[in-house]
């Protein structure tokens, strides 16, 4: 299993542009919803699925949880990003399934076998 720690619940401080770019990259890689806090205080909650820094005005794209989307938000309008949604890739479905199989096998084995 992956030992990488989930970012679920992370509320990073964004102090400069370099940090913003880093947090956006982490949010892009995150398989859960995030809350994007805009400079005007508005909050967008949804899945951030794309970012592009190779353009004159870098932007992120997201599907908001409530709404059809997708919507684009320029980096310059972002004040903070919080990792508020459940990390759907942090689950251990395979490990849980293996444990279940082992338990079922043990239960069906005759005692002392």
């Amino acid at each position, binding site marked *: 299993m992956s030992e990488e720690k989930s970012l679920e619940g992370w509320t990073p401080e964004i102090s400069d542009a370099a940090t913003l770019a880093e947090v956006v990259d982490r949010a892009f890689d995150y398989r859960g919803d995030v809350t994007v806090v805009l400079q005007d205080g508005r909050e967008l909650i949804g899945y951030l699925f794309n970012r592009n820094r190779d353009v004159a005005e870098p932007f992120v794209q997201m*599907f908001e949880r409530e709404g059809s989307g997708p919507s684009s938000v320029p980096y310059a309008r972002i004040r903070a990003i919080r990792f508020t949604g*459940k990390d759907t890739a942090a689950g251990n479905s395979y490990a849980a399934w293996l444990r279940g199989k082992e338990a079922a096998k043990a239960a069906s084995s005759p005692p002392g076998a």
Partner: protein
Amino acid sequence: MSVPVSQMWTVATYVLGQRLRGNTRYPLVLMLEPLFRCNLACAGCGKIQYPGHVLRKHLSVEQCLAAVEECGAPMVSIPGGEPLMYPEIGRLVKELVARRKYVYLCTNAILLKEKLEAGLFTPSKYLSFSVHMDGLKQEHDEAVCRDGVFDQAVEGMKEALRRGFRVTTNTTLFDNASPIRMQMFFDEMMDLGVEGMMLSPGYSYSKAPDQEHFLRRQKTNELFSKMLENPKKRWKFNQSPLFLQFLMGKQDFECTPWGNPTYNLFGWQRPCYLLQEGYAPTFKELMETTRWEEYGRKSGNDKCQDCMVHCGHEPTAVNHTFTSWKGFRDTVAATVTGRL
């Protein structure tokens, strides 16, 4: 090889046409993902880990068809997610067949019998159900993390074959695969009457639940060499024999990341079906603005070093067949003799 002659001809003329026009980068198979939702959660899959509201979304048929037109590839593979859960799968397939695209509908086949009985599909040389089968019953049910799926898939395949559909299988192999068990699996699939089998080593998706069992390059060569050293004549593979030789370590191919471009809810995926490093709004932009030199083994990119997956290397093998005498000769030899 079990690819129908008409399909081979279509691919050959397409590749040669691209070369004659001086195109060096062109797509062979569009990987069209109309949805991410699936009725399984397989250990090696990194495709479905999204929040519920994303999983509930899907592309419209019109979006899918626009992507197909834009891309222009002669073959369209419909993975997902589980495409049989896509509410408009019948209409989508019908439209693609009408456009004479060779469609591989990649399904776990849990819903196949039900959809066939509902009359959703019509047999066509352009349509093949590519059923996910990761080995014999024990191995497959373990790979998909649910007991009974192998039997359901077999039932669906039998029904499809009975109704005259093309049926192939696609198998992803991990480092716990047994060459002998896989050979038994090939026999079983041939006994069922499938047209051909597709094989590929798995790719270690960073988001996949099981990170322990992905094959490294040398192990891939060893496994495939043992498995395919003396292939039975009756085993039919629905893929390039040169790609199988590559997996056995007999060919050295670089990746062609643009060979199987991927389109889904997020747009055109950069750079390939496996890596998600961003999305382009159009196919043209994908092709023109992706830094292709940063991908493939020779690039030194860590993420590409152990990758031998079909979506990047089979296009290389196909191009090799149709653009070099050696490639053509090796392909003909393997096809005629059945030796890899």
